[in-house]
């Protein structure tokens, strides 16, 4: 499965907050509630936390689910299988919002972006 970003989504990393979240993660402090990446689609603003941001920035239409999960597991020191399940769950969630298309599933070859 190879996820592809919806080109209508504009996004950026919140630089200082991204570093702060990593600093907290390394010190084993709470970082999950920090919004480190901001996205905008059709005027609506959303934020992803550190894990979501690291997944999002690896979605490039080339990296597979396995590759992304492997890198996330390595980054955060998690078990590979559990991480793949969690990453897949995250991708399915943002697919429902219309932020990505999950190519490689049964269905039309061309991703159909949902109106959000």
């Amino acid at each position: 499965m190879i996820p592809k970003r919806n080109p209508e989504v504009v996004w950026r990393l919140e630089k200082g907050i991204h570093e702060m979240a990593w600093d907290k993660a390394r010190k084993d402090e709470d970082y999950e509630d920090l919004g480190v990446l901001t996205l905008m689609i059709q005027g609506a603003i959303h934020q992803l936390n550190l894990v979501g941001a690291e997944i999002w920035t690896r979605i490039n239409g080339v990296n597979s689910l396995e590759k992304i999960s492997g890198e996330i597991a390595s980054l955060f020191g998690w078990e590979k299988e559990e991480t793949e399940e969690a990453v897949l769950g995250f991708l399915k969630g943002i697919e429902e919002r219309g932020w990505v298309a999950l190519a490689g599933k049964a269905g039309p070859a061309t991703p159909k972006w949902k109106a959000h």
Partner: protein
Amino acid sequence: MEYSLPIRVRWDVDFQGRSGRAKRIARQIREASPLHVELRIEGEKGISEIPAIFTELHKCNPRIEVTAPLSPEAVAAARRGYPMMDFLWEVSARESFRRLLPSGADAISFVPGEENLAYLPDVLEEFADSETRTLHLPNINAVRALALKGHVPIPRPDRLREAGHRISALRIRLEGKKLVAHDYFLWRILRGAFPDEAAERVEFSGCQAASALAHVDWEGNVYPCDSLPIRLGNLQEATFEKIWNAPARSRIHEAIRSVPASCEPCEQREGCLSGCRGLAYYVSGTMDAPDPCCPEKPAPASK
């Protein structure tokens, strides 16, 4: 949500034939990496700056929305087809706009203030008959109004009510069209009359001044919002990051996050989120004041 820098920048590119060093200002805005840039073009000076502005801004890949006058020069500029750049055509109450709209025009903009609110029903009627799909109704640009007229023509609640009655009596159909009202109280009126077209305010989740939003004027001065005329710095003298990280901006952000005392007991607060804090500040001199358009409160004395 917290942001390291604004994600939405509104820039008044020109004013009465004047503009600052547009390319330099555009570069400073670009370095802030906003996700959405709203350009307001007044005349030929601003139109002539569009290519240089686009060259800078597109490097950070934002969505760009240009509000431009219905002039042949602006239409010609729009026809060049800049990617990721949408044009909104500014309409006035003084003349019919349908015949002036370029072919394929998707959106128009009308700023309802005290002086022209009575014409909003006429604008809605013409919008209904036009091919355009979206009508934007931005808040009054206080920075521009102060420079032009020396005061800000904020609609009074009774004028809003009158306009609301006339709008409710309109026999128009807006299927397939969209109304984007920045003012909460105006949006409430429109949602009552056109529930599908006014829809939910996904773009407006409380005052975003000094957090997600920044305003830049034609000389590069930075403000928390175009409705909140407190100057934070100038992009021709300092970077956006330096201006945004200064204590002045943080203090304004904190003041906006606190709920005005008179709003606390109000049941409507969860919907209006205390309305426009900038106009509240302009009218009363403090952000601990209700929105002057709020129908739940007595109108404060205007400046």
